[in-house]
């Protein structure tokens, strides 16, 4: 196990003048990075030793008490040498739901980003094979958004039936 690096110093030296908000909860370190600088920040963190992408996910903050931004995209990073973890968060608002893809930094981002698009409609630019992951391509909604009802919008019941002659 190698020593863990001081990521705060790393990010502040690589992104001078950018507002970074650091916080901690039950000894889990988190940082909030503006969406414009996210690619730069992730690349700096990878170079500082965060060699594994654990997860990419999003939260729709529509009904969250006191939230000002609509979407929060969360990157969970890990240094496999030292075991250090960091959560990177960034915020997005409609209509500009675009982020640069992290696929060139970690290949593991491939399906994770596709799933975030599938469920929330956030587009990752520069992804080599960007399409829905779990739901059918013709599906029009993004089901994990808070304005999507738990019971769905009847997609399942109104599914077009293909007859044997048409197939």
């Amino acid at each position, binding site marked *: 196990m190698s020593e863990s690096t001081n990521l705060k110093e790393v990010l502040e030296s690589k992104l001078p003048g950018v507002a970074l908000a650091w916080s901690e909860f*039950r000894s*889990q370190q988190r940082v909030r990075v503006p969406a414009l600088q996210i690619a730069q920040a992730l690349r700096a963190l990878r170079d500082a030793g965060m060699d594994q992408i*654990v*997860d990419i996910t999003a*939260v729709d903050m529509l009904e*969250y008490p006191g939230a000002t931004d609509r979407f929060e995209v969360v990157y969970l990073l890990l240094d496999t040498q030292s*075991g250090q973890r960091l*959560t990177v968060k960034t915020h997005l608002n409609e209509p500009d739901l675009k982020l640069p893809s992290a696929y060139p930094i970690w290949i*593991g981002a491939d399906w994770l980003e596709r799933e975030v698009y599938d469920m929330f409609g956030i587009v990752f630019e520069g992804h080599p094979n960007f399409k829905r992951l779990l739901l*059918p391509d013709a599906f029009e909604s993004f089901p994990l958004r808070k304005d999507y009802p738990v019971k769905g919008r009847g997609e399942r019941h109104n599914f077009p039936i293909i007859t044997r002659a048409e197939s």
Partner: protein
Amino acid sequence: MPLDLIESPDLDAGYREGLWTLNFGPQHPATHTTLRLVLKLDGEMVVEADPDIGFLHSGFEKLAEVLDYNQYVTIVDRMNYISPMANEIAWHHAVEGLLGIELTPRCKYIRTIFAELMRIHDHLLCTGTCVLDLGGATAFMYAFNEREKIYEICERASGQRFHTSYTRVGGLLYDVTDDWVAMVRDFCKTFPRAYRDFAGLVMKNRIFVERTRDVGVLSKADAIAGGATGPVARASGVERDLRRDEPYLAYNDLDFDVCCAQGGDCYSRFQVRMMEMVESLKIIEQAIENLPSGPVFISGTGKEGLPDKTEVYRSIEGLIHHFENIMPNRQMPSPKESYYGATESPNGELGYYIVSDGDFKAYRARTRPPSVLHFSLFNRMIRGCMLSDVAAVLGSINIIAAELDR
């Protein structure tokens, strides 16, 4: 044609058109559940594999937003149904991390024993079916014989063989009984012999070794950058195990080794799983002999833990306590925070990222399923292999479609 030639850009476009496409699945014995692979083949060589998943998507993460922290446990054990209890332990590990709950020693030990039983359970199926897919039906039956015993142990503790829903926030559904302890001891005695039989049939079987060695190689760099964890990463030489690196439950008190291999091929993954079963048995033996006495729930006066069932049915105080814990408008509040809790499940790092808005249910609960990241690396493993190797590689990374699609 060799793979590096196929990749070169100045290759004749007619060649690419000459590749033929094969649909593997959604219904195929080697896909185990429902997933589809679109394979591009040059003769019998796989040039490209495009996995198509989502056939079993059922909106589990959406359901997490309407069910409370205790109710959602019935959903998580349907994710990786090969080792259901491992999911429950992971889910409540994350919830208890968010709520800041420290479990009782007895609860920690029982959960540890179950987590390791589930590891054996999962690895027996994975190794067994891996051999079955390659044509060896006998070893599979040996493995399933042992899995049946673990089902019985689950049934004795929770009343359910399969979807146990056994953990609760701050404790367990019921305490275990003495005959459960005897069953686990008995399993520890009989398992080594069954393991020897199973390993003897397969480990040095020439057909099996030749069909898995140097097949589906995942390099160490790809394993790290691709987010591979668990046996898949350890078979590629990534020395990482959350039980040792971020100890949770009772793993700090117990002595075990982290099993690694260097090859990164199907055989290495198989070997790692076989070695881990021995280590798991070691952990179970230590834990069952040192099982602490005492309550399984954290102190039952506050809103943290559910009261004992005998109290609920026999005293008014117990009933009120139960009511206060169960009714949606009276439950324990949670901090308005986000928390990521991860455990080493049999398949790899199984984590839950929970965002809470103060209620006793998640505002958003994201599952970090190890299968998704492993399956996204499938194309890298299979390129350049033969069509018959697809079954070997699929078997060795243990894809569970219900966890993949959620």
